[in-house]
């Protein structure tokens, strides 16, 4: 695609965005809001998780910070404690602020994850009363709800058909396109999902999220060079994304292993890892990769472009950093508590294996 095409698509996207914004303001309907305020909380079949405060007196911002402090892919216990906030959040008076609606959106996802379908239906109802059924984001949430409610594959195919109909009217509806792609992938139509995603990227080549998703789909099919290409596209949009650098290192490493391990391929992987470590201080994933790849390079025979003493030095630097991280995390030193316990365990394993081989 030429740069001219990209620019044209970018402006086109901006226009559709402003159209959506227009739709939001046009669909304002204060009457519907007041009708929905009265709400009876559903009786939960689950006992409250330990540590959940009785949340009757918490304010909107406290709820928001509860949701923000959990990652976008929460663990089941996190989802449970979030979804148990539903009755108290739904009983708050509707203030019609952006915070309130973003809280509703997060709550909807939590409710769907934990199977609290009554709350989910109510939240969705209030959202669509406020923003209208033709709003692209609401349509995507509605689709998400339908997908979650479907009990068999036939119903899922029905949802897919709905998506296709929506896209026939408006091919630039990005949220619905993304839902359609995810559903195709879920139904194990992986090649169709990839085809649809490439079409979306032709329309909208500056969307880093789509490129990253395409890389994931290619990676699942072990098409490493295509995955690497997609992640490099992400780096063109977000050059500082150190986790993408690390991902590139990981995929290059796997590609090198798969193809029998050429030295220069491991060196490419090492370069990605080193850039990631350069962009993020004391980055566990980055140093783990540096240690792993330098270990491989020291074992393998073949002509290297990076001198051996340099590789040795990098290996020892990574060892020092990883040791620091492990001891700091185990002692609970301030500034070391945020690491993922599973990742730290993996580091310990790697260091132990290194000690044995020496």
């Amino acid at each position, binding site marked *: 695609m030429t740069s001219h095409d990209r620019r044209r698509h970018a402006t086109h996207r901006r226009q559709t965005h402003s159209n959506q914004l227009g739709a939001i303001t046009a669909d304002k309907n204060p009457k519907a809001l007041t009708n929905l305020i009265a709400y009876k909380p559903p009786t939960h079949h689950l006992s409250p998780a330990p540590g959940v405060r009785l949340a009757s007196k918490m304010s909107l911002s406290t709820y928001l910070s509860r949701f923000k402090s959990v990652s976008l892919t929460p663990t089941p216990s996190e989802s449970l404690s979030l979804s148990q906030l539903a009755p108290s959040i739904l009983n708050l008076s509707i203030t019609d602020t952006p915070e309130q609606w973003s809280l509703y959106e997060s709550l909807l996802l939590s409710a769907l994850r934990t199977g609290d379908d009554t709350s989910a239906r109510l939240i969705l109802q209030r959202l669509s009363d406020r923003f209208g059924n033709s709003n692209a984001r609401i349509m995507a949430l509605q689709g998400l709800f339908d997908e979650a409610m479907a009990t068999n594959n036939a119903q899922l195919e029905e949802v897919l058909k709905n998506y296709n109909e929506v896209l026939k009217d408006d091919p630039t509806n990005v949220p619905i396109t993304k839902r359609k792609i995810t559903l195709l*992938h879920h139904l194990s139509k992986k090649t169709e999902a990839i085809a649809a995603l490439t079409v979306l990227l032709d329309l909208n080549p500056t969307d880093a999220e789509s490129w990253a998703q395409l890389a994931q789909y290619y990676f699942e099919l072990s098409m490493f060079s295509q995955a690497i290409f997609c992640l490099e596209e*992400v780096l063109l949009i977000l050059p500082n994304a150190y986790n993408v650098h690390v991902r590139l290192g990981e995929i290059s490493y796997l590609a090198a292993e798969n193809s029998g391990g050429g030295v220069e391929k491991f060196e490419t992987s090492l370069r990605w890892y080193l850039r990631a470590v350069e962009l993020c201080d004391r980055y566990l994933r980055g140093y783990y990769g540096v240690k792993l790849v330098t270990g491989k390079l020291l074992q393998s025979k073949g002509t290297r472009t990076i001198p051996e003493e340099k590789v040795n030095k990098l290996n020892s630097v990574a060892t020092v950093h990883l040791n620091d991280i492990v001891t700091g995390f185990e002692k609970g030193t301030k500034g070391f508590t945020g690491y993922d316990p599973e990742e730290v365990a993996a580091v310990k394993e790697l260091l132990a294996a290194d000690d044995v081989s020496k």
Partner: protein
Amino acid sequence: MSLPSKLLITFSSLLLAHACYSAHEHSLLSTTHPSPSSPASPSTSPSGTTTTGSSLPLDITLETLISVSLLLLGIVSSGWELKPISLRSYAGMLERGSVFPDGVDGKTTVRGRGIFDGLEDRPGFLDIRKQREEFAQWIKTHGDS
């Protein structure tokens, strides 16, 4: 706060207070006790009173200036922790959980997060059915306990 800067701040504050006190005393002295020469020679009194009433002696002025500059130096060098301004250190602190982004309560969570986590979570491509199944599995094993 280090000890030298604490001492510097204490010393310069005392000096500033002393300078203020001296200036106050000086102004009192000049208004309550007009110089004895003024009634004897009224012709020089206008110029005489203006110089004694409005201008401070050089030592008080110098004391004030020096104490203020020392106080500033003390505060600047007292070394509070500066906010990270490079991506490298800020991203590292976020990943390690030393700082949390705006709106996140550091007390309810300990896990660090990254600036670009969205590229790996990808909310637009959320596979809700998979997450529901995972949760249902989890609740089967943990829910009843």
